[in-house]
Every structure is written in structure tokens, then in C-alpha cells.
């Protein structure tokens, strides 16, 4: 695979054909394409929420109270008479934003760390990766709970906390990629040409490691969204007046016996989105022929 990839990358034209091939392979995977479409739809809905939401975000109707789905409120209303569809749309914005931004945080830290460790090698590598090993062994859920309890809850901290957990695997993948690429001739050539390490990492190593990174990113987003939902469920994540699917599920679970739609619809939204992301991630993994990027 490496030699194949090398020849691909050595030539920019053929490089695009690698991606073309991958796209062709992905297109054959029906589940992955459905996942991709649903995901794109979610993103569009999230972006357009303020325009398309049927009701104002905080519009209450106390006398109406909780009602099951109807023509006026497609997904029903909560105990304040607020439209559930509107709530889910706004919640989705936050859930997706957390998913993407926290993953980006993890991505940046992980790639930088892994690339430096892999490129530097030797003692630096040993120290850096030992640190990753140690962090791996920490019970992170326990720490996140503690962190959120200690420092109060704000979105920025949430991003940081989640990002801080998720970068470890990314760093390992990146280091592995860089290490194997570093042995290749074109990198050695670049070094002998006197390119600075930063430029080499940026121009040669990162583009080559892109496949696994894309796959892993697609699979990280759902786990980050889960984490956010989980923290919100414990009352430690997103705070009102903002809402997220995790928060809506947590409210819904409290009153599910009387108003099951308050649990079922946000749950459905989260599940469908996670399904799409996972199918897309698996599809990409097959299409880009990336192995062992997870587990």
C-alpha cells in the first residue's frame, strides 16, 4: 500500500485519482451514502434553523402545556407549550457544533503531537508517546465529570475537555503514519534538500496521512457527540437557555411516562445522526482502505 500511495503522491495527477477511486468505492456503499446525505441534511438544517424553525425558540404557551404531535406542532410540545420541532432544531445546532468543534480541537492537538513525535523520533518520541500512554490509562470520564463539576459549565470548557480526551488516538495514528512515511525516499530527499522540519511535516507528511485522519475524524465526531449528550444528561453539559439533544433527552426521560414524545423525538434525532456518521465512517474506512485506525 505504501509504495502504491507513494507513487500516487509523487505525482499530483495520480494523487487525485486516488481520491477519485475512493469516491467511486464509497459511492457503491449504499449505507454510507445514505449516511452522508442525512448528515448533509442535518448540517443544512442546523445552519438554516433560525430561518426555518416553525416557532420562536423561547415561545411558551403555558396554558397549552404538553401536547402530543399535531398539525400545529408536528413533534408535539413540552410542558411549557414550546414547540418540540423548534427545540430539536436548535438543539441539533449545538450538538453538531460540539461534535465538529471538539473534534477539530482533538484533531489539531493530536496531529501536531503525533507528527512531531513521529518526525523527531528517538528520545523525544519516546517521552511524548509515553505521556500519551499514561494519559490513555487515566479514567477520563471520571476526570471530565470532575472538571465540569469543578469549573462550572460553559461551552468552551466542554469543547476543551472533550477535545483533550479524544486527541490521544489521533496522536498515535499520526505518529504511526509519519514514522512509516519518514522512511520513504521522497522525505529523505526533502531533508537532503534542506527543507525545514516544519515545512516537511506540513507539505509532505500531513497530506499523506490524510486518509486515516479523515476516517478517524468521521468516527470521532459521533463519539464526541455522545460524550456531550452524556454530560448534558448528567446536567453537566450544555446549559439552558441553550439546549442540545442530550439535554432534551434528559428532560424527556423525566416525564416519559406521560409525554413519551419528549423522549422519543430527540432520541431519534441523535440516533439517526450517529447512525449516519458511523455508517459514513465505516464506508470511508473501506473506501480509503484504512486499517486498524480504530480498536
Amino acid at each position, binding site marked *: 500500500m505504501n509504495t502504491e500511495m507513494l507513487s500516487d503522491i509523487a505525482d499530483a495527477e495520480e494523487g487525485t485519482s486516488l481520491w477519485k477511486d475512493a469516491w467511486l468505492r464509497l459511492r457503491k456503499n449504499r449505507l454510507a451514502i445514505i449516511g452522508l446525505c442525512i448528515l448533509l441534511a442535518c448540517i443544512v438544517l442546523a445552519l438554516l434553523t433560525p430561518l426555518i424553525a416553525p416557532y420562536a425558540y*423561547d415561545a*411558551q404557551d*403555558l*396554558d397549552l*402545556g404538553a401536547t402530543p404531535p399535531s398539525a400545529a406542532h408536528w413533534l408535539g410540545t413540552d*410542558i*411549557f407549550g414550546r414547540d418540540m420541532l423548534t427545540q430539536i432544531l436548535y438543539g441539533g445546532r449545538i450538538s453538531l457544533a460540539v461534535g465538529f468543534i471538539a473534534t477539530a480541537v482533538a484533531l489539531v492537538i493530536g496531529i501536531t503531537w503525533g507528527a512531531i513525535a513521529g518526525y523527531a523520533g528517538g528520545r523525544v518520541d519516546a517521552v511524548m508517546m509515553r505521556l500519551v500512554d499514561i494519559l490513555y490509562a487515566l479514567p477520563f470520564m471520571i476526570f471530565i465529570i470532575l472538571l465540569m*463539576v469543578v469549573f*462550572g*459549565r460553559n461551552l468552551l470548557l466542554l469543547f476543551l475537555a472533550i477535545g483533550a480526551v479524544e486527541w490521544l488516538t489521533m496522536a498515535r495514528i499520526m505518529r504511526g503514519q509519519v514514522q512509516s512515511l519518514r522512511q520513504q525516499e521522497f522525505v529523505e530527499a526533502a531533508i537532503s534538500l534542506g527543507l525545514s522540519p516544519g515545512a516537511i511535516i506540513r507539505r509532505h507528511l500531513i497530506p499523506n496521512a490524510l486518509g486515516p485522519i479523515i476516517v478517524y475524524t468521521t468516527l470521532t465526531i459521533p463519539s464526541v457527540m455522545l460524550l456531550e449528550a452524556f454530560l448534558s444528561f448528567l*446536567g*453537566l453539559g450544555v*446549559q*439552558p*437557555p441553550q439546549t442540545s439533544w442530550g439535554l432534551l433527552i434528559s*428532560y424527556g426521560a*423525566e*416525564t416519559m*411516562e*406521560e409525554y413519551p414524545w419528549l423522549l422519543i423525538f430527540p432520541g431519534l434525532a441523535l440516533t439517526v445522526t450517529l447512525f449516519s456518521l458511523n455508517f459514513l465512517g465505516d464506508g470511508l474506512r473501506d473506501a480509503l482502505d484504512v486499517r486498524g485506525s480504530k480498536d
Partner: protein
Amino acid sequence: MRLCAPFAGALVIAALVAGLGGCSPGESRVVQGNREGVLYLGNGTEPQSLDPHVLSSSPDARIAGAIHEPLIMYNPYDLSTEPGVAQRWEFSEDGTEITFYLNPDARFSNGDPITAEDFRWSWMRAITPEMGNLLVEVFYGIRNAQAYSKGEIDDPEAVGIRVIDPHTLRVELAFPDPFALLNFAYVYMAPVHRATIEAHGAMTDRYSPWTKPENFVGNGPFTLEDWKMQRFVKVKRNPYYWDTNNVALNAMVFRPIESATTEEKMFRSGQLHSAAMVPNNKVKGYREQPDTPMVEGPYMGSYYYLLNTDRPPLDNLSVRRALAMAVDRQTLASTVLQDTVLPSANYVALGMPDYEHPKVLEFNPTEARRLLAEAGFPNGEGWPPIALNYNTSENHRSVAVAVQQMWKQHLNVDVSLANQEWKVYLDTIDNRDYQIARMGWIGDIAPSAFLDRMVSDGPTNRSGFSNAVFDDIIFNKIRPEKDKSKIMALYTEAERILLEETPLIPIYSYKVKRLTQPSVKGLPSNQTGYINYKYVELDPDAPAWTWQTLDP
């Protein structure tokens, strides 16, 4: 090693069935309990401690009430006093001393007699500074107890507890308080067994194993038999109890159940004789049941929003009153809270006996708008961003979301919601780093339990409220007064001043809601949730209550 796969599979399934399902259905706990005279009670959270000078939460106090007995008890029906360890008691002429005559038959659960000295030792333990007694305030009615507990004096003789003879105890009061007797009925003032405590550590050790079942010695109608963490606390009849012939039950089992939903389900499936909580969304269903097992009534607690009167715009009285008068408590109670509370514009809980509630902050959107305009915010113009803090809870959130909307609707002002985890929230309140904060207070059947706390720099007055007239009524008019009806009128006057100054916005008064099996007698609901276990009986022939599905 060469396990045949089907065999292994069968083994696994067998293990699952045995572990997950293996148990006979049989009769319910309620029916079994009725027959054996064992009462099963839902009791909130896991008890922290059963030492009357360490415990501080109501689930703990409910269990402690069965295994400790103070000087005075109440009749659970009308909350009138009746003998505990004291057979009788009398106030001195000037109302500054109470003499308790102890029952000579009163004994600890190991047979040791209870003497006046036991009370003196126990109470001195409770107010010893090193003890760190969180409820030490209940002793403040005793002369110099407050100073002693703060380490300001260290002469135990100065504290107004006098042993006259082994069965006579005299208490000198800090001031002639007609409600003083209330304190002596708290389980926190029960005697403890000195030899047992000293056998298991220092007198002031919180971390002491003396309350473990194998060590425990108490003086209640029951005594501790077993305590399994997070599972149950079991108490059994105490044969040395002076009135044991009038104790009907053989044993009681207290189950720690934190969620009202769970507790209700366990009640419905015949696992509990009584549930102390009913989930809001079930209340309506229970009301509609024929022969409903649910009792409802006023409870001496009030729910309100505390205002920080030092923070603009809340430093302006008109703003405070405008906010208070724009809360439509009736709608809130009937919609979001499903009539599980009593809407109230009063700080003193509704249902306070012999007390007249002043009407000051009733819902009046027109007046509220006028006041807001008067304060310089006509129709909410120029309103600065302010926040309402509450601690994480579904109920608090519901109330806050609804009130936020009412302020928006009636005054056109925006108030943001800030939800904080409990301890962070307490810290915020303690540092007065808030503008509006959710508060709840459970008092007693005396208005003093509510209003005395609001004096300037009072221990829980964190609003910034300080009013000379109010303080004067509490300290100089009420305290020397002995006529109860005059005292009540003065308290009404004090509450009127408080509400007019509006350092807080009353939202509602609590309601007691309790589910009780038909077999249970003598467990009435009352304003303080007081239980006198001596009164409780079980009808051995009564069936377990079952939920009737009603046709709509």
C-alpha cells in the same frame, strides 16, 4: 477446555436466568408486613448518620425519630404536645425557665435508666464547639448555649441546663419564648448514651462507630437492628421503652429511594406501605383514583426567589415589587406544577396555624408595569441584563423557565437563567454573587421559624435586607410578649414589612403529598411531616392497594 459450544451456551443462559430472574413472585412486602407487623417506608436518601448531634437531613431525622426520643412528643393528628421522656413540664412565672419532670420508667435500649444528667451531658455534647453540630441552632433557646457553642465562654456551668435531681431537669431560656417547647420536641435534643459513645471514641468524634447496629444504644420506641448501605435500615421494637405496650409495630424498614418516580412504582407494586414523595406528573392520576391512597395538605415550607438588594437594578424597590407582582402564581401552579403546590405570595408558609397572611405582592400586571415605569424602565426599555440562578433540578428549571416567560410577557424584561450544580450554587449564594436566586425554606408550625431568619445579618438572610422596624418587632416587641395572639399579630406585621420591602419574591407554599396503603393506621399527614411511630398500626387483613385503570 474442550467445552462443547451448545453446552457452554446453555450454561451462560442458565447463569443469566439464575442471576437476573431467579426469585419467586410470592406475596408482596405490604401483605407480608401487614401480617408480621413490619412497616415498609420509602425514605429519600441514604441516611448519613443516626447520631442526633451529627445528622442534619430529614431522612436521617425520620429514622432517628424511631430510635431516639426527646423530652416531648407530638400527637401526629393535631400536633399537640404529649409526654416523651418528660412526663410533664411547667414554665416559671416569668416564662424564662422550664422544668421537666422525667419519667422514672424511661430507659435506654440496654436497660439503663435515663436521668436528668443524661440530658445535661448529651446537650453539652451537642453544643461543644469541637462537635461541629450543624443543627446547633436548636439549642440557642437555652441561656448561653449560643455563646458556649461558639467558644465565647467555656464554663459549662454558665449554660442554662440544671440538674435538680435525677428526674428533674430545669432549663433556663435565653428569652421568654412561647414557642420554646417546639425545640424540645426535636429529635436533635434526644439524650444519647454516654457509656456507649465513650466506649467507641471521643465524645465529639463524628467518625465514630457507636451508631452501628452492633453498638447502638438509644431510647426510642424502636431500636436499630440492621443497616445495609443503600439498601435499608431496619429498626425493631425496643422492649425497654417506657411505653412499649402502646407500640403496635414489631419492626420498621426504611428504604432509601431518591427518585419519586421509583418510590411511586414501588408503592404501586406493593413494596412500600408508605411513600413520602409523589411525582408531580402522577398526582392527577392519584387524585382521580377511587379511595385514593394519596393524602395532600399544606406543608410548612415556602419556595421563593431571593433578590440581592445591593445589585442594580434590584436595589430599586419599585423594580423588586414590579418583578414580584408580575409572577402569575396561579397559572404557574395549575399548569407547569400541576397543582402540586399552593400558589402563594407570602413568605410564611400557607396553612400556618392561627396566623393571618398579609396580602402585599399578589399578581397584578398593571401595577407591576406602572412600578417598572416608575423605576425608569417603561415597558422594559433600558433594562440591564440580569440572571436568575437556580440549582440543577427539573422542578427548579420548570419554575424558572415559566417565571422568566412571565416577566417577559408582563414587563417585557429579559432575565437569563443560570443553572448551577448544588455546591457551586451554595457558594454563589454565600458570596452573594447573584442577582436573583432560587430558595426554599422548610420551617415549623411557628412563624418565627420563617421570620426570625430575616433579621439584619441573620444567618440565612443573604438578600441584603435590613430594616430597623422589622428588627425592632422581632427583638423588642415579640420577645418580651407572652400573649400568643398578640405575637401572631406582630408576626403578620413583620411579614407585611418584609413583603413591602420585597427582598424576596414568594412563589409557592409546599404541599405534603403522601401515599399510604389502606392497611396503615395512625400515619396522618400534618403540616410538618411529623411522624409519631407509636401511633402507627397495621391491619393484618387489609389487602394491598391496587391501581384502578379508569375509563376516560
